[in-house]
């Protein structure tokens, strides 16, 4: 039985079994591979997408349970949102595998709270694991995108002028 899903403003009839997690429908059937598999049990946040603007873990969401929810994935952001620009400006990604999920969580945060304080950032972002530990740049990039003063961390990280080798 076909299930209909609305992803990034487009309606799809998908043929995956109805209990298939949205994550695998996005990745295997729709070819939207920006959303990542990290843990499969909603612990790491790599699979985060938006359902009607709210962040959800797509690895735990059966496609049949979506109803009429409008899904937005990293591909649906367009590539140049203030958050994505800040991510590039501050070179946030390292391995990058978790970053789609990080950006989707941050997107939901800024949509609901244009000037989040540290506690709000923690609440929105603590479900997204980054094993590379890009956490402080993630926080800085959210503040950058929100037009808030960033954390005072020296950059470039030189104790003295460029080394003369």
């Amino acid at each position, binding site marked *: 039985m076909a299930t209909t899903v609305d992803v990034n403003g487009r309606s799809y009839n998908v043929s995956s*079994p109805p209990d298939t997690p949205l994550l695998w429908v996005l990745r295997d059937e729709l070819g939207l591979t920006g959303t990542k598999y990290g843990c499969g049990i909603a612990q790491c946040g790599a699979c985060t997408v938006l359902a009607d603007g709210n962040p959800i873990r797509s690895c735990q969401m059966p496609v049949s349970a979506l109803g009429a929810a409008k899904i937005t994935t*990293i591909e649906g952001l367009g590539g140049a949102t203030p958050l994505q620009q800040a991510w590039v400006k501050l070179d946030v990604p390292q391995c990058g595998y978790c970053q789609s999920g990080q*950006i989707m969580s941050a997107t939901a945060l800024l949509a609901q709270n244009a000037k989040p304080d540290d506690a709000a950032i923690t609440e929105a*972002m603590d479900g997204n694991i980054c094993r590379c*530990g890009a956490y402080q740049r993630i926080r800085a990039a959210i503040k950058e995108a929100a037009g808030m003063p960033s954390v005072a961390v020296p950059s470039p*990280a030189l104790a003295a002028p*460029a080394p003369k080798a």
Partner: protein
Amino acid sequence: MNKPLNDIVRAASRREVLAVGATLAGSSLLVGCSLPTILSAGSPVKPGAFGAFLKFDPDGSVTVLSKHIEFGQGNHAGLAAIAAEELDADWDKVKVEQAPANAKLYGNYLMGGLQGTGGSSAIANSWKQLRTAGAAARAMFVQAAATKWGVAAGEVTVANGVVAHKSGKQAGFGELLADAAKVKPPQAPTLKDPNSFTLIGTPRVKRKDSGLKATGKARYTQDVHLPDMLTAMVAHSPRFGGKVKSFDDSAARKVPGYVATYQIPTGVAVVATSTYAARQARDALKVDWDDSKAEKRGSAEILQVFKDYASGKTVAPSGKDGWQPFSSHGDAAKAAGGTAAVEVAYDFPYLAHASMEPMNCVAMVGKGPARLMYGAQVPTLDQVNCAGVVGALPGSVEIETLATGGSFGRRANFQSDYVVECVHIAKKVGGGRPVKLVWTREDDMRGGHYRPMVHHTVRVTVDKDGYPATWRHRIVTQSIMKGAPPGSPGGKGLDTTAVEGAMGSPYLKATPVVDAQALTPDVGVTVLWWRSVGATHTAYVMEHTIEQLARKAGKDSVEYRRALYTKAGANRHLAALNLAADKAGWTTPAPTGWTRGVAVHESFGSVVAQVAEVKLENGQPKVGRVVTAIDCGTAVAPDQVAAQMEGGTCYGLSAALFGAITLTKGVVDQANFDAYRVLRNSEAPTVETYIVPSTNKPSGVGEPGTPVIGPAVANALLAITGQPTLSQPFVKT
């Protein structure tokens, strides 16, 4: 990691002979060839007009081929900058492309010629190579322009990708491309005076992949979708060393999308038409395991074995399987006598790497050369291991290295475990049909290759000023190098990966009598290097012991270390410590509620000093500001150095606070992030990075930031509570 990697090379050589002998019996062509030559046999890769590292396009863009994998550590930015600097290229027009597997062209000379990324060696081993490549190409463009314009080559300049002459003539690389390609490359081009660097060492050296990674467009192994591709998952033995006795796949066969079941050396594999189907089918398998040769002990029992060896309750064998001395000098009998100022034991658990992208691989076997796509950390070793499965020359195994969601050491192992597993399955499927092997998080976390469990005992006596007079040290752990293929010399005698960091410590150098020994008994749990390898535990033991000694002596932590570094002639340690202490305001009071801890450690040729501000919150350590100083020689990409200090600190802190893999009756207790706790955003410190100015060639950056934070935090906790922290993780669950 350099010494062990030489062992890998030797082991690979042996396997090579076997592989070649089995498939090309009688071929004499290969006899006597160097390892890189043999490995490259059959490889389609040919260097272009500008060598193996640079490609130029008519539009003026420059592509730097990276022989190293980018799995987060930022080396692609630095590697490109090294070539671009000598080339005087327009940095905005420089691109990075992953080089294919070819040991002859892309061997890592710090790994004895294997093509591989590890030991924090990417920038260091490419420094001269890419400078030379860039300078040679620059000279070719200069000569081409001089000939074309009829001027002296010495009058032609290059800046920001523009080749120019004072007469006003100028051209981009693209316009001169055809002519430059005909110029004979200079063998020993003149390299720049580092004083004239305009790119290296500046904040302009940014990552080239942030845009792809901020838009979901970077292509990881997990993202590969090929026509007709099957997805594979494998049921592995729950115990290390377990084998398949029998299996029942009747339920798996009923899963929609199921295609086939295969028994392979590592378990039972199912292939299916989608990831979800493969998962359901794999989970529906019923496998009866033969545990007769499996490791059936729990981690607590194994630790007790280690403790009994260290205390002398169990007598170790003599010879190469027995206690191995390191960094020892003076009369050992003295180290057992006197009154100990500090006598402590430390325990460290197994640790999973737990990269965000679990292990996976795509393979096509049975139609033309075997072809693989994945995050290849040591591709030419993987070639050797895969060649043995498909019966071909290693060099004929084509490997495309993709964007990779972390490794921290996991993707470099002697057996090429998950890669070979994928090739076995693809061989069964046959016909060149693409197979994507997917390990679930649970497979990955229970799949072994952990940082070994480690037990240290330390006993130190001091002189009248409170400085170490005698130092007795015992380390019991598993040997990483024993995982090397049969015949490798790595598993016998002292395994330096078990002691590095204690071995060579300036503190031991400054101590008149040292009796230090290590023992590596056999355990069936598979172990591997884990970001910073031996330093993950030795840095902790050395730095936390020194802190206890400093307190006993009633001396300031920084002053105490300074005295020992001065005595040991450890000038780089001293400089890094001084920079960190200065930037942290060590001599001024810490912010209200916070307590500072300091630690210093050298690994992979770089010295890192950290001052961490710590407090206890609900009984748990909370880490705030961490001031980091690093001497990594010439810092090619300073902002990426900072990124690695930030990330390495988080990785080390995660392990120190929460990391532990435990086993019960041989079965791993943790399977996912719900049980294997890792550092989250709110727990991450704010790391400030300062780079010690240096004229030395570059040294490691990816790993040295990891091992220092644990002891820095423990040393702050010692100041807060008065108690040493003698086991990790700090937070018991």
